[in-house]
């Protein structure tokens, strides 16, 4: 759970104040659909995650290997799992 909070905090940073509406970073929230991530956001989150967890965490590289379904359905929990696997 500690890792989830840490990753969620980084994602929350990228999402920002959302024009006044605080975003809920739930495990099943999708980056693209729920958090409205675009490619710039993915790059920003990737850079922040690599700074915190090391260069083996390469979110942009990970995302570039996914197919359309996996990309549009990518959730916060899946990002946490990816970070856990790479940072281990």
């Amino acid at each position: 759970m500690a890792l989830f909070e840490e990753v969620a905090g980084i994602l929350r940073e990228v999402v920002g104040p959302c024009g006044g509406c605080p975003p809920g970073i739930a495990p099943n929230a999708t980056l693209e659909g729920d958090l409205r991530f675009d490619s710039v956001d993915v790059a920003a989150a990737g850079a922040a995650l690599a700074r915190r967890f090391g260069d083996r965490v390469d979110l942009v590289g990970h995302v570039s290997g996914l197919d359309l379904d996996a990309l549009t359905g990518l959730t916060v929990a899946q990002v946490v799992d990816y970070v856990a696997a790479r940072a281990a």
Partner: protein
Amino acid sequence: MSRYLLVVPPLAGHVNPSLGLGQALVRAGHEVAWCGPELHLRPLLGAGATVFPTGSRLFRPQSDHGLAAVRSVWDRFIVPYARFSLPAVDKAIAEFRPDALVVDQHCPAGAIAAHRLGLPWATLACSTMDLGDPLAVLPRVHEWVLGRVRHIWDKAGMPADEYFDLRFSPHLVLATTSRELVGRDFPEHFRLVGPLLAERPDQPGFPAGWLRPDRRRVLVSTGTLADDVSARFLRAAVAALAPLGDRLQAVFVAPPAELPDLPEHLLAQARVPMLDLLPHLDLVVSHGGLNTVCESLAHGVPLVVAPIRHDQPINANQVEHAGAGLRIGFARAGAADIRAAVTTVLGDPGFRVAAARVAESFARAGGTGAAVAALARLTESPVTTGPSRSTS
């Protein structure tokens, strides 16, 4: 004199450039007709245009963004529209007997029809989504798009061994941008001609006396969308610009009922005479459709781009890279973000200088004149790929 058939989708950002091209072809003594849904085309093309109708059918509105929008534009629009319109394109060719076709990049039916008859044809790319394959950084998404193109080919009963990427004519690809803006080179048969500006029929009026000479002028347009995110952005933009009445005026392209109680220096109008207004503007805030971006830059007007979907993030990055504006987040930018971007661009003449540089690149690219010349060469030279049944 040649006859050109322009195959277009029912989208203003695609029909408008085709109108600019059509008007230039007519001025050069050629004959022009359009093929597409007349219900959508007629108001944009005017009463005088020859339109071979495909009929209209409802396509589900696209409220997706990001990569989900890549899927929906192909699955809900490009693929069904190609299948639905192919018989109408065949019929238009039989009746109009064109010497060449100009096929919008998102109307593969025109590509199939032209290829089948061995007619010369050019692609007209009015979007950067399929120009230089920006999706190549996501190889499996790129593969998926090519799968949809192949699906259209197969469903049309075309021979497998003649398959080619229908998004690109092997003879000529006209794109409404410039090499300087895209920032890379293209194959020999690509002509990046810049925006194809048209004299548009039935333009709405604008209160001529409203603009004040002692204020900077901003136009805010998020296209023809009407979803909740768009409404949120417009309200945030109003809140951003409301305290700036001492230095600017802003026109919102939105139904006035959606933005009630505007202060005196803000004005909402459902439609505006864009090309007449642009010479008087200092900044355009836009979702970043290529049509709006290039029309603004052609007039040397810098932009703040808040991209939503399709090629808009690509266009936003190109504008920023060219130094001609800033990109902000469409879904999340609040009033403070929008105000900061607007005051930054208005406050630094460098943005206007960079926009003027892009305008010069458009002028060098040649616009409608260069497109007409390239099409004339296309119809004069024999087509190298013959009719598909030529071997029998």
